[in-house]
């Protein structure tokens, strides 16, 4: 738990950073719109510089405070996103830097009979470690590409990343706390918090069945390294398949509760209209007649190597590459079209790192005559869901999985 002293030291460190690396590492450059989708708001383009914060390569700055930084497209050419390029997303601007030897995690709640505390060493050594490849994607990834635009962090396509996460299973930690049968949800808090006392602290809950899933971890390694500060050091929740809002960073407390968690970030924020998206897993204890909490990610893909307007040679093979992912059913196929969607061919899928991971795809095609070609990729998952051609609008700007249309010139 961060003490006042700890917080002040970290804030001091950031002050020093302001005079040094933070400023010097900036690279100011126009960031192009994501290819083949609608345009970002012009104000978001104007303020979306490439900037480096401590420990990160230059990322696309969406906001300084709280820090929201997006991964540039080039890093999605590989299945696993480097830690230094992994996107950063915070709701609230008070973010202590936690020292590993001072961190403790409290596990309890009214539906736990033997509450306890543990430190990082105990988390690592008292529970079996599991590794899992999983996509962490912000619920609002691609919000900036909504037409009409909706207010919020105006993300392009890079509020996501894929990593190998290592940690203890949440179910093992809950078992030690004596999880009772009346447990309904597991509520989680992290060390980051609001600037104003009246602002609702960012906390989340998940259904107890999701907490007991083998693929829900308290992770302390990311791609084999300690988590970067900006990605939740020293430990964060990994809720494989579900959007990033549940992946609580800098976790400080985990409570098993017997009633629906009453918190703005669960009850009001991060909601989607009922029955509008083809999802399998629902958060039943938080549903209303009108809306429900966002849960699993919808199936999606991203073409990573085609630039709008680029020249491709007639008679020469050209490769369309990218990554595809979904909420844990697993990618069944990716189809590629090079004629505006009139015909589709199955792309080759790359190595399978598990159903929660990015799955790479590749398709070769050879233009046979000069002119404009529109390149598209459409992923489908093993539950039969596929990407949409038209945006499914919703007030908060979630679940954008519209197929890209990238026009290239065959010459």
């Amino acid at each position, binding site marked *: 738990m961060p003490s006042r002293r700890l917080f002040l030291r970290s804030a001091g460190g950031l002050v020093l950073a302001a005079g040094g690396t933070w400023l010097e590492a900036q690279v100011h450059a126009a960031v192009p719109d994501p290819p083949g989708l609608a345009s970002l708001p012009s104000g978001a383009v104007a303020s979306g510089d490439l900037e480096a914060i401590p420990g990160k390569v230059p990322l696309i700055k969406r906001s*300084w405070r709280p820090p929201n930084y997006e991964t540039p497209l080039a890093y999605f050419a590989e299945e696993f996103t480097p830690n230094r390029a992994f996107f950063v997303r915070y709701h609230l601007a008070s973010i202590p830097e936690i020292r590993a030897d001072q961190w403790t995690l409290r596990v309890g709640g009214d539906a736990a009979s033997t509450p306890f505390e543990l430190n990082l060493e105990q988390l690592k050594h008292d529970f079996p470690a599991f590794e899992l490849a999983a996509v962490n994607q912000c619920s609002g990834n691609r919000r900036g590409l909504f037409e009409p635009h909706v207010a919020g962090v105006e993300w392009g396509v890079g509020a996501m990343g894929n990593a190998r996460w290592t940690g203890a299973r949440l179910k093992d930690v809950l078992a030690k706390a004596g999880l009772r049968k009346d447990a309904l949800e597991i509520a989680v808090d992290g060390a980051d918090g609001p600037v104003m006392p009246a602002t609702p602290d960012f906390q989340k809950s998940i259904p107890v069945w999701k907490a007991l899933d083998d693929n829900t971890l308290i992770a302390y390694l990311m791609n084999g390294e300690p988590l970067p500060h900006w990605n939740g050091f020293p430990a964060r929740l990994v809720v494989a398949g579900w959007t990033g809002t549940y992946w609580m960073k800098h976790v400080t407390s985990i409570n098993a509760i017997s009633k629906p968690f009453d918190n703005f970030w669960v009850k009001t924020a991060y909601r989607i209209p009922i029955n509008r998206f083809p999802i399998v897993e629902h958060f039943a204890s938080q549903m209303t007649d009108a809306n429900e909490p966002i849960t699993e990610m919808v199936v999606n893909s991203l073409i990573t190597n085609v630039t709008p307007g680029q020249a491709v040679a007639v008679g020469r093979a050209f490769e369309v590459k990218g990554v595809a992912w979904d909420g844990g059913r697993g990618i069944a196929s990716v189809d590629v079209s090079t004629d505006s969607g009139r015909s589709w061919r199955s792309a080759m899928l790359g190595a399978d790192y598990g159903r929660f991971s990015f799955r790479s795809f590749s398709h070769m095609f050879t233009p046979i005559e000069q002119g404009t070609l529109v390149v598209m990729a459409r992923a489908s998952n093993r539950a039969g869901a596929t990407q949409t051609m038209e945006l499914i609008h919703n007030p908060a700007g979630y679940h954008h999985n519209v197929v890209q249309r990238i026009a290239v010139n065959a010459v």
Partner: protein
Amino acid sequence: MRPLLLTLTLAVALTAGYVLAQERRLGLKDGPGRAQVEAHCASCHSLDYVLMNSPFLDRSGWDGSVSKMIKVFGAPINAEDAKAIVDYLNANYGKS
């Protein structure tokens, strides 16, 4: 985690230090209400949120955003300042 109230003033002051250099680069458009925007909105978040969310919100959109900051996030802004802020945002960063 909710920091103790006692730490908040200090925390805000120090946090302001590290972001100030960044945030000074962003000059919001001059006009009536800019001072209120800088005084109130920047207490909790950098003002690039304004630029990023432009220009697509109309007056009712900006009114909704400011109202959410007050009612949901507890921003201590009186009615007079809130109106000045909405007027400024709509005039300078509103839907064109």
